[in-house]
């Protein structure tokens, strides 16, 4: 069977997500090998640094195209924080900007052919979501001390509702990192898998492959939009969690 042959050659739609060890490294018992995933993480960091630092190298009063893009991304996140968190969110700007740019460039890098999308791995997105979750929780506890726990009992709710409501609130709070990470991971996974599946059809259908090919072109546009959208969603949810941490209700 042709399909099986393709799969056997390592061209399964999921093959693109395989972690390939490039330089095996071991620290103690922990595997810290340089993989295709880590290469693209480093590339993402370098690309963002280049984009931001080189764009502002000749900082002009009237910005050029590159500087405009840099300033636009800055203003975009600054406004996002101002709208969701308010002026108290200002100190967290560098972190939130980092989250946004990291996820955005990671997603966009994945749109280039032969690249690896590190945001399509649940362990990566979950680590980031967990970090956001723990950070936000620590900020909330540092700011509100024990009053933080009133967060699980919304004001104006009758006392007899508490036994039902408090567990629900706690579960919904604890599921935040899961929903945050799964949303990003699943979007990336589904999009890239779908593209790979249809890309397989292009060659399998011969002349009629033009139909899935057209579909892929459209899907590529959609995926680029999703790359932006998921970075935005990840960032705005981080902001909302931060807002909850700073203002509780």
């Amino acid at each position, binding site marked *: 069977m042709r399909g099986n042959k393709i799969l056997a050659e390592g061209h399964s739609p999921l093959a693109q997500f395989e972690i390939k060890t490039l330089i095996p490294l071991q620290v103690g018992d922990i595997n*810290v090998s340089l993989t295709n995933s880590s290469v693209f993480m480093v590339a993402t960091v370098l690309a963002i640094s280049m984009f*931001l*630092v080189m764009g*502002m190298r000749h900082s002009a009063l009237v910005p050029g195209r590159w500087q405009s893009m840099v300033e636009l991304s800055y*203003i975009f996140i600054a406004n996002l924080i101002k709208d969701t968190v308010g002026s108290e969110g200002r100190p967290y*700007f560098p972190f939130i900007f980092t989250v946004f740019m990291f996820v955005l460039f990671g997603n966009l890098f994945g749109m280039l052919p032969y690249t690896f999308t590190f945001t399509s791995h*649940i362990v990566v997105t979950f680590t980031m979501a967990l970090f956001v979750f723990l950070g936000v929780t620590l900020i909330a506890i540092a700011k509100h001390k024990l009053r933080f726990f009133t967060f699980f009992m919304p004001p104006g709710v009758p006392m007899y509702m508490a036994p039902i409501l408090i567990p629900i609130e706690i579960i919904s709070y604890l599921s935040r990192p899961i929903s945050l990470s799964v949303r990003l991971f699943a979007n990336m996974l589904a999009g890239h898998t779908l593209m790979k599946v249809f890309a397989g059809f292009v060659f399998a259908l011969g002349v009629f492959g033009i139909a899935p090919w057209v579909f892929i072109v459209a899907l590529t546009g959609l995926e680029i939009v999703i790359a932006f959208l998921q970075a935005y969603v990840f960032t705005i949810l981080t902001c909302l969690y931060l807002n909850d941490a700073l203002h509780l209700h």
Partner: protein
Amino acid sequence: MPQLDISTFSTQIVWLVITFFALFIIMWRVAVPRISDSLEQRQNRMDDSLNKAAEFKKEAEAAIEAYEKSLAEAREAAHSAIADVNAKLLDETAAKDAELGTKLKAMLSESESSIAKATENAMDNVRVVAEEVASAAAERLLGDAVDAGVVSAAVDTATKSRN
């Protein structure tokens, strides 16, 4: 599914933490301050320019006000000068009129008095002539000299009756 291969988790987490924090440090220390500096500088420059423009506008308004004030002052000064000259002229003409009037009056009264004197003289002469004529006539008629006193009385009565 490669995502569920637990053996790759540690390397991904480690590299994620390294790269993410490297990026965070670059952002925090280099990129964000640069961008915010640039934006702030632009904002300051704009505010400066706007302030300057407002200042210039204020200055222009003050200049216009001063100009209008001096214009009004000049106009007022001109008005008062004209009024002064007019009053002076009126005074002068009035004084000249009065002077002329008194002069004329003096001349009039002088001439009147001279006329009166002349009339009197003339009347005296007439009387002398009348007396002479009367005495001559009487002498001719009467053939004898007539007393001068009688003649003058007769002339008196005659002139009185004529008057």
